[in-house]
């Protein structure tokens, strides 16, 4: 029996039709993947189901009864829970307190704390969601925080679980664990809706797949009938090329950027430990690693945002004295920041204002005091066209653009300034599959033009696909440095989690 049936759901915001006549079913003990690009209407549909939005038309049936879901409270009462992309947790409370929040066990008029710990402990045991009920949430890594969110759903005895892009914040290992947990849920008869735009995890976890494009259902199909190419095409509406052609580069191009004996301490904790890296022209050096092993700090050091405690950066063989962001930009080190929203763009600036950020001092855009408005506008128009940035006008606020297009603004900005070296950190995080393809092509294009590129990414597929050489970072150290073709996913995975390098040991023998 279907536990959820949504029929003819329509929802529009102003002139944008987010959902048009959408049908969706899910059965007990099933994982349904709701697949679509950003802006395809996945989240809108789920917000309708979770009572955050009221549909303009359509009906919802839960366990065979038609329901009007007016608020998340109604949804919770009907056994529906949603794990949002951004966690809704109180950082200063413990895990157990967060889980029971709003539905606390009571002893008389008082909060029964002991029972809360006990029940949460039991739940986490039962479903293999290992997390210490006594830990304060602020001390947990993101993967654990997500478990707390899932425990919340379990504690509320939800049978229908909606997960919005759950793997966006997880490492590959954590994602595997999550899917293992989801499989258990399935066996215990829960229905799971997985919102995602990642094909791989859809193929890995789902029983059935519903594909949305521009607010409409393209198709619903069992996973066994699906293949990746076909799914991508349905999602984007055109064929996607997954492999990338690249030029063979001559050997022995000069080293454009290096870092020697780099050590960085923050609040007494060593974040980077004696790191040595060389990046040659015409080369993409991939830095692979689980988030939080020093990648962020490495990127910030190389772009002048943080100052090393020991060691130095060399550009074209010359050491950089007192690096600052302005200086590194002057030295033609382009920067694609890992977190677009905090470092990459200014949401309330227009597209054109964002396109010159970092280069506003260059003579092209600025006189002694005044910005050259005409030059800026001409440049912005040109760049928006060249980099396929889809916006109404270059004067629109950046926040009106989709994530992929915002990232194109960042990339267009860096590439138009003819950089010698590019630090690309998580260049495709939170970006549609179509835009991913585009961004990858641009990065390879830079490489083919002889630029040095340092690609820092938590996405192993991306590193393997793009890099010529891969260095693995673990706990602030480079633990391996080799030609990309000598790695496979297993070796990388082992290195990233700090296990000894098997292949090297074999070679040594």
């Amino acid at each position, binding site marked *: 029996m279907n536990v959820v049936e949504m029929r003819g759901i329509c929802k529009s915001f102003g002139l944008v039709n987010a959902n048009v006549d959408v049908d969706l079913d899910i059965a007990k003990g099933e994982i349904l993947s709701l697949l679509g690009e950003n802006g395809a209407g996945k989240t809108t549909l789920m917000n309708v189901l979770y009572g955050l939005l009221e549909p303009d038309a359509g009906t919802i049936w839960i366990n065979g009864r038609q329901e009007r879901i007016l608020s998340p409270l109604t949804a919770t009462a009907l056994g529906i829970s949603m794990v949002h992309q951004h966690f809704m947790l109180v950082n200063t409370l413990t895990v157990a307190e967060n889980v029971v929040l709003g539905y606390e066990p009571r002893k008389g008029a008082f909060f029964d704390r002991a029972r809360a710990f006990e029940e949460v402990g039991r739940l986490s045991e039962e479903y293999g969601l290992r997390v210490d009920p006594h830990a304060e949430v602020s001390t947990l890594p993101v993967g654990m925080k997500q478990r707390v969110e899932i425990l919340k759903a379990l504690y509320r005895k939800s049978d229908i679980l909606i997960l919005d892009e759950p793997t966006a914040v997880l490492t590959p290992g954590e994602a595997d664990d999550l899917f293992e947990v989801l499989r258990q849920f399935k066996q215990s008869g829960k229905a799971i809706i997985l919102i995602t735009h990642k094909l791989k995890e859809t193929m890995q976890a789902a029983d059935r797949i519903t594909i949305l494009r521009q607010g409409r259902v393209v198709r619903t199909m069992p996973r066994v009938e699906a293949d990746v190419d076909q799914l991508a095409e349905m999602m984007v509406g055109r064929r996607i090329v997954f492999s990338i052609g690249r030029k063979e580069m001559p050997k022995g191009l000069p080293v454009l950027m290096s870092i020697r004996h780099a050590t960085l301490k923050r609040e007494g904790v060593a974040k980077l430990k004696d790191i040595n890296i060389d990046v040659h022209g015409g080369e993409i050096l991939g830095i692979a690693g689980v988030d939080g092993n020093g990648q962020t700090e490495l990127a910030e050091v190389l772009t002048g945002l943080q100052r090393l405690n020991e060691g130095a950066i060399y550009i074209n063989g010359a050491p950089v004295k007192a690096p*600052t*962001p302005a200086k590194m*930009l002057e030295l033609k080190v382009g920067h694609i920041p890992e977190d677009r929203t905090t470092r*990459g*763009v200014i949401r309330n600036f227009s597209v054109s204002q964002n396109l010159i*950020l*970092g280069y506003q*001092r260059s003579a092209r855009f600025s006189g002694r*005091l005044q910005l050259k*408005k005409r030059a800026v506008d001409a440049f912005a128009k040109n760049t928006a066209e060249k980099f396929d940035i889809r916006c109404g006008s270059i004067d629109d606020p950046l926040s009106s653009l989709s994530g992929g297009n915002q990232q194109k603004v960042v990339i267009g900005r860096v590439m138009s300034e003819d950089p010698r070296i590019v630090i690309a950190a998580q260049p495709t995080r939170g970006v549609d599959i179509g835009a991913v393809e585009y961004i990858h092509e641009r990065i390879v294009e830079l490489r083919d033009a002889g630029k040095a590129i340092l690609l820092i990414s938590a996405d192993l597929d991306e590193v393997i696909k793009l890099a010529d050489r891969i260095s693995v970072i673990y706990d602030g150290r480079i633990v391996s440095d080799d030609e990309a073709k000598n790695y496979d996913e297993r070796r990388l995975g082992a290195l990233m989690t700090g296990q000894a390098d098997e292949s090297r040991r074999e070679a040594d023998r």
Partner: protein
Amino acid sequence: MKDLFTRAWKKSKGFILQSGALFSIAAFVFSLIVSAAIMLLSGFDPLQGYSALLSGAFGSWDNVATTLGTATPLIFAGLSVSIGKRAGFFNIGVEGQLLSGALAAAVAGAYLKGLPAFIHIPLCFAIAWIVGGLIGVLSVKLKQFMKVSELIITVMLNYVITYLVDILVSEFFLNPGYVVRTPDIQASAALAPLVPLSRLNTGIFVALAGTVLLYWIYRRTRFGYEILAVGLNRRAAETGGIAVNTKVSIAMFISGGLAAMGGAVESMGVHGYYIANMVSGYGYDGLTIAIMGGGNPIGCVMASVIFGALRAGSSNMNRTTNIPGEFITILQALVILFVSAPLLIRYFKDKLTRTKSSGSEAA
């Protein structure tokens, strides 16, 4: 006639909606309505009150002069808050900066002798600006090094400055006599009145020049671009090679300087000396004015004139009716409440844009 109106609306619609002017106006109208309700409940006649207010503010040329004269320091205060806010620094220290400027200008005006007016006046302004500007920079540095919220720093600095100024006046710059004030400024430092025996003086032109200056900075200059970047997203600005702390310091040098100018024109144009409490409350009004003006310099001027009118009109209301002048304070508080109630404003914005778009579809 109606056609003319719709055409004018169409032309200015974009500007009004974008600049948020409409919402400030709406907020002001709401405040008037709610204050009227409160007056009614308290047994007063709001029509009588408002007409007394209006005639007190604009009823004669003298009254208009008082309104504009009162608006002059308020313009400076509003501009001061506006540029700080743009750089992401909420400057509640305007009150103290204003005060310091008033004293600095009064002292420079009184003790520097034998200078021609065309040197003496700018020199007084410059000294006031530097004193106020340095206080602004000091608040930034304190925030930077002590990692304390700027709200606390600037509010506390207001107290420090208030009492420091009192000490300076009574210990070093006291005019002999019964009143605690500084000596009269030299004639060469006086700003000429525009209407005889009124508050309105040539200082208003300086205020308007300041408005134009800020407008130019915001709209055209790289510095304006950079401080806005800092104000909107500090970390992105830093990544874009902007020396964040330097820019905020410069912005606050301008902010503190502008505030001090507001005090200077009072000393040099209205009183001719410094006396305690002569500018009290102007700085805090500046906060409301900047919010009401939506951070736009021209909006600040308009809001200042409204506030000047309220101040000027309230004494007339006090004199000619039995309505207490405190109603003006209620009105001002309501303005703050409505202007800073974003939900309310979004509601009206949605409503307005929706009716507009459906209207154009129908046509």
